[in-house]
């Protein structure tokens, strides 16, 4: 193979990695935003809030990415996020901080299991099934908070658990960002370097072929819904620790942003293509753009307009990039 062909192939390999577009995009906006705001955007004061918000959205997006890779969708993560926060805050004084975290995760996993059951056992389309759970558990969130205040009591605030799961600050950064990085590393390894991940990518790419090779497709789909639920609940715990309280609308509409983050990050909705790094960066990019608009005194509602355009452009751009690389290789 000639040197030229070899480098072309390498270029193709690099470009077709799902995260390439979003890495480039993020790098560009980091530079542009920092310059345009004369460094304010990237200052510690601003970055701490941006990174904190990215962390919780990012963790939700990671769970969503797993589901999307399996060629399904989960639009209930916003409601699970809320349930996680409420269960954590609500039970911490009764059963202790660590157990409260565990309980929140169990609840998230249970809701995810219910989603999985609807999709695999009852063959309901994932969109409709998770739409149903979105409603059911959002309603429960509202119901739980009527007449109750869900704030972190002093006992909770001083606990070790509170510190570990989002409450502790270092250099002004809440530790939720560390959790995001840890999750990205772990999940990336799981998806790309374990048998589970290989089979997940396979069933997302072609579930009939995966089944014919002995992959337990229904079991795995069920498992990714459970994981998505656990991660969403975990994000809720971190957020609750960060701000110290939660209300019934916690997480409302965040599922849409989580999906957007995944799509921007290079995960294909048709499955089989995943990037944990991409999803996390997608979350960061979205939060960063929001912050940029605020710093420029642009009405925050322009973010919605921008978000819609970004998603479409990201998809078209990704397709084009992939096609270009295919032609050149």
């Amino acid at each position, binding site marked *: 193979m000639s040197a030229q062909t070899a480098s072309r192939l390498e270029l193709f390999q690099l470009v077709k990695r799902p995260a390439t577009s979003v890495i480039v995009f993020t790098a560009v906006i980091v530079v542009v935003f920092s310059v345009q705001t004369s460094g304010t955007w990237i200052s510690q004061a601003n970055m701490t809030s941006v990174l904190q918000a990215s962390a919780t959205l990012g963790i939700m997006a990671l769970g969503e990415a797993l589901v999307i890779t399996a060629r399904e969708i989960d639009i209930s993560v916003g409601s699970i996020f809320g349930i996680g926060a409420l269960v954590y805050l609500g039970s911490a004084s009764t059963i202790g901080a660590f157990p409260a975290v565990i309980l929140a995760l169990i609840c998230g996993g249970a809701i995810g299991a219910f989603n999985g059951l609807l999709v695999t056992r009852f063959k309901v389309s994932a969109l409709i099934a998770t739409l*149903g759970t979105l409603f059911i558990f959002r309603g429960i969130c509202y*119901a739980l908070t009527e007449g109750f205040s869900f704030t972190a009591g002093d006992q909770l605030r001083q606990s070790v658990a509170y510190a570990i799961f989002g409450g502790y600050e270092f250099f002004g950064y809440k530790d939720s960002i560390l959790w995001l990085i840890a999750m990205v590393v772990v999940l990336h390894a799981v998806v790309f370097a374990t048998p589970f991940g290989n089979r997940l990518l396979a069933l997302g790419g072609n579930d009939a072929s995966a089944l014919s090779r002995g992959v337990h497709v229904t079991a795995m789909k069920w498992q990714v819904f459970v994981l998505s639920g656990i991660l969403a609940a975990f994000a809720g715990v971190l957020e609750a620790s960060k701000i110290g309280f939660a209300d019934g609308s916690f997480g409302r509409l965040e599922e849409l942003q989580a999906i957007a983050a995944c*799509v921007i990050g290079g995960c294909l909705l048709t499955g089989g293509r995943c990037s944990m790094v991409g999803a996390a960066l997608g979350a960061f990019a979205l939060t960063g753009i929001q912050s940029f608009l605020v710093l420029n005194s642009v009405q925050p509602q322009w973010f919605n307009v921008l978000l819609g*355009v970004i*998603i479409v452009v990201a998809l078209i751009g990704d397709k084009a990039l992939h096609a270009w690389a295919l032609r050149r290789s």
Partner: protein
Amino acid sequence: MTPSSVLSRLGRRADVGAIVAAAALLVVFTAFDFNGFWSFFTLLNVSQYTAILGLVAVGESLVILTGEIDLSVGSIYGLTAIAFITFAAPLGVPLAFLAAMAIAIAAGLINAFLVVRAGMVSMIVTLSSLFFYRGIIYVWSGGTADSLSKANRVEWLTNLLGGNWLWFENGFFLFVIVVIAFQLILTASRTGNHLLAIGGDSASAHSRGVDIGRAKTFAFAASSALAGFSGIVTVADQPQTHVTLGEQMELQAIAAAVVGGALLTGGRGSAIGAALGAFIITSVRYELIGMGAPSSWYITFVGIVLVIAIIVNQWLSATLRTL
């Protein structure tokens, strides 16, 4: 026609579940809350909101039965309403109506273009539209409420859309007309045949000469148009805008459509079903309010109904068809 053949024809309808559920609901309400439900006030509210939600749900049904989804209807509902009110002052009501509807249809055509031509997944396209138009709403209205001028409130068109007749809102009668019209389109026209054919089996539909792109474009345009029309009817009756107009209506519309028998696997749906779905969701909401239940129960209820409805409808579709 034998009783069993009538039954099996009934059983094969997409909306049989909704028909049975709606009937059962009426029985339950009559039995347990006769005075509350059959009161003038409740009936008025239920009919009005059923009409508003139902118009959107009928459009959503069309999209769902082609195997796609439209998440942007809530934003388009709000956008069109605001456009109507904003245009009414300079353009007068009739022109404002046309301009606003044009915006709605254009939005639908853009969705269709991205799905059909650019080959993008409808969930993502309409999700983007949801964000985009919601943002436009905020920016356009500037967060402030706007309303129709006194003169425009008594315009003939405003009255036609928002006035009353026989104590019921005109919107309700318009809704009934729309449902009948679209049920006819679905069951008795070539377009309707094409729409139903696609969802069921795209490949065979294509080989039979169905222009899939055109049919889907029709579905998306109709969905946006109906959502926009519903928005205009809403503000013709209560002529104030607010930025949250239509928020999360898409989810309710999808729920209503699904309850009404529309299957996301496509090929199955009914305008009457969507209307009944809207009725079911709305009437229970008002019953809950009437009973003094906290409003959070409504959302939970919609979720439970949605899950039960889809399971039942899928089972019905699979089983009763083979009778």
